[in-house]
C-alpha cells in the first residue's frame, strides 16, 4: 500500500473511529488528551549517560528508543486510534532529571468524551510498514532515518538499547559495550493494558503516563540477564543465540511498560 493511500486510510479510520461513537460517547463532545512515555531506572527518571547500578556494577545508557505503533484507547470493543507510528527516542528527551521526568509526549489531541478501560500499542514497526525502507519517507518522518534500519535483514530496528558496563567492577572505566538492537517482524510485540479507568471529561485535559521501567528489560522471571555474556545482540537471524536473546529482550520490553493514571 502506498504511503499516500495509507495516510488516507488511516485518516479515514481515525475520523470514523472518532465520529462513530455510540451512546457511550456524547456525540460531538471531545476533549484533549496527552500521553507521555517516561523511562525510569529503579523508579527514578532515567537520565542518559548517568551512572546506574546493575547487579552491583555500574552502567550507563547512551541510547534508548523504540518504535511505538498503533496507539489505541479502548472502551469495551470500541477503539480510538491515537497515533500510527512514532519513534520514542529517550536519547533526545532524557538529558537531565528534569527533562526525563517530563518524558516523551507522543500524542496531544481531541478524542470523544467518555470512559476508557484499555490502552494498547505495538513495540516495533508493523509488518506493512516494515516492508518499506527509510528512502521512501522524508527525513522528518519517524520511518525516514537510515540509522533505524538494518539493510541486511530488510527490517527497521524496533528498539535500541546501547550503553556501557563496568564488567570488572573496579568502579572505573565502563569497559564493556552493551547493545540490544531488536528487529524483524517476528520480534514485533503488542502491549495491552486492560481494566484501566480513564475518564475523558469535557473541557478537561486528560493526561496519561506510560512508564518504561528499564530494569525490567534486563530482569524477568528467569532472573537477571548476565551482561558479560548476553550484553549484545542485533538480532542476527543466522545466530540462534542472538535470536534467543532478542526474543527474550522483546518479551521483556512488553512487561517493562506500565500505565499510570
Amino acid at each position, binding site marked *: 500500500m502506498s504511503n499516500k493511500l495509507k495516510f488516507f486510510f488511516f485518516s479515514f479510520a481515525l475520523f470514523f473511529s472518532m465520529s462513530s461513537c455510540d451512546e457511550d460517547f456524547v456525540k460531538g463532545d471531545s476533549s484533549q488528551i496527552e500521553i507521555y512515555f517516561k523511562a525510569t531506572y529503579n523508579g527514578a527518571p532515567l537520565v*542518559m*549517560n548517568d551512572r546506574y547500578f546493575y547487579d552491583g556494577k555500574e552502567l*550507563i545508557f*547512551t*541510547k534508548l528508543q523504540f518504535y511505538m505503533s498503533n496507539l489505541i484507547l479502548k472502551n469495551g470493543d470500541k477503539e480510538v486510534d491515537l497515533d500510527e507510528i512514532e519513534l520514542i527516542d529517550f536519547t533526545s528527551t532524557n*538529558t537531565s532529571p528534569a527533562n526525563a521526568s517530563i518524558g516523551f509526549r507522543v500524542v496531544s489531541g481531541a478524542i470523544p468524551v467518555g470512559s476508557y478501560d484499555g490502552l494498547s500499542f505495538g513495540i516495533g514497526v508493523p509488518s506493512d510498514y516494515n516492508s518499506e525502507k*527509510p*528512502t*521512501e*519517507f*522524508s*527525513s522528518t518522518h519517524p520511518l*525516514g*532515518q*537510515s*540509522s533505524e*534500519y*538494518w*539493510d*541486511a535483514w530488510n527490517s527497521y530496528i524496533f528498539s535500541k538499547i*546501547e*550503553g*556501557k558496563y563496568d564488567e570488572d567492577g573496579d568502579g572505573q*572505566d*565502563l*569497559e564493556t*559495550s*552493551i*547493545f540490544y538492537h531488536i528487529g524483524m517482524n517476528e520480534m514485533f510485540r503488542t502491549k495491552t493494558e486492560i481494566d484501566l479507568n480513564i475518564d475523558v471529561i469535557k473541557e478537561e485535559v486528560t493526561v496519561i503516563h506510560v512508564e518504561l521501567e528499564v530494569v525490567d528489560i534486563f530482569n524477568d522471571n528467569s532472573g537477571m540477564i548476565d551482561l558479560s555474556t548476553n550484553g549484545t545482540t*542485533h538480532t*542476527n537471524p*543466522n*545466530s540462534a543465540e542472538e535470536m534467543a536473546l532478542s526474543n527474550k529482550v522483546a518479551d521483556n520490553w512488553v512487561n517493562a511498560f506500565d500505565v499510570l493514571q
Partner: protein
Amino acid sequence: MKTRTIFFLLILFFSACKKDPPTDPNDLTNIEYNPSSYSLSIPESFPILEIPEDNPLTYQGVQLGRRLFYDPIMSADSTMSCFSCHDINYGFNEPLSLSKGIDGIEGPRSSMSLLNVGFFYNGLFWDGRSHSLEQQALEPITNPLELHDTWENVIVKLKRHENYPTRFREAFGIEHKNEITKELVAKALAQFQRIIIAGGNSKYDRVLRGEEFFTDSEFNGYDMFFDLSPDMPDAECAHCHGGPLFTTNEYVNNGISNVNSLEDFIDKGRGEVTGVLFDNGKFKIPTLRNITLTPPYMHDGRFATIEEVIHHYNSGGHYADNLDPLILPLNLSEQNIQDIIAFLRTLEDTEYTTNPDLQNPFE
C-alpha cells in the same frame, strides 16, 4: 506661413530640450527572467532529496552556483574558491590532512567530501553546526582560516562584475544590482551542491541490481560489513555506515583520541556546538561512497590510508566514557581487513566527474 514656422520651431525647441529618461546602470529589468526547472537524476536507491521551498533547483541557479563555487572572486585575495578544498578530482574533497586558507594557515580540521551532501539532513560540517546548505555556504567566505574575505567586499565584487549581476537576475529575478545579497549567493551555492550526486552505478549498486557479482574477497567484506553470517567476524560497520549513502548522519566518538577525561579533547567537535560534555570528541559519520578515493581520513586527517582506518577500528579505539558502544575490538585478521577494503572499493563511482554541470566552468 510665419505662424507655422514659429510653431515648428517651438516644437523643435521643446523636444530638443527634453532629456532622455535616466537609465540606471544598475537596473536589470531589461534582462529576461524566466528560470527553468533543473532536471536532476537521482539513483533509485537514494533517499528523497529535500529541497527548500524558497530555493527550488533551477538551471540558472545551478549554473550561477557552479560559477561561484569555482570562482576565486569569493576570496579576499582572489586566489581560492570553494573548489580549492572541494576538488571534483578528489571526490569534492582535498588530499590534505588539514585544510589551508588563503593565508596558508592550517585550519583545525580536514575538509569534508561534498559527494551527496544534499542528502545530509542532520547537520553539516564535522560538528553539524549548520542546519542547511544555505546556512553552511555563508561561513567559509568570512572564516579567517578559509577564504578570509568579508561579505560586504564579496558583494561589491559581484555587483561590479560584468556577468554576475545578469546571472543573479536570471536565477533569482532581482531587478537591481543592489539586490545581490549573501543570502542569494548562499542559495546559488546550495543549488549547485545539491546536484553533486555520486553513486547508483558503483559495482555495489550493480551487484544489488543483479547485474554483476562480487568477487569472493568483496563478498567476504560485504558479509563482515553487514554481519550477515555467524561464520565471519562482525566488523560492526553498518551501525554507523548503513543505508544507501553509507552513513547514518549521526555524531559519535569513534575512539581516535586518547584522553583522560571528556574535558580533554583538543577538538571538542559536536560538544562545541551543543555545549553538552558528553558530546565532546564526537564528529559526524561521513559517507563511505568513494571513501577509498578520498584520503586522508577522520576529522583531522590523521589516517593516510583506509588500511590505517580499519586497523584503528579493529583495535577498539581509545577508551572514553562516551566512546560509542559499537566501537569495540573486532578481532579481524589481516585477510579480513583486506576483504573489507575490497568491499569498500566496490563503492567507488566516479561517473559524476563526467557531469558537465559539475565541472569547472573556467577551464
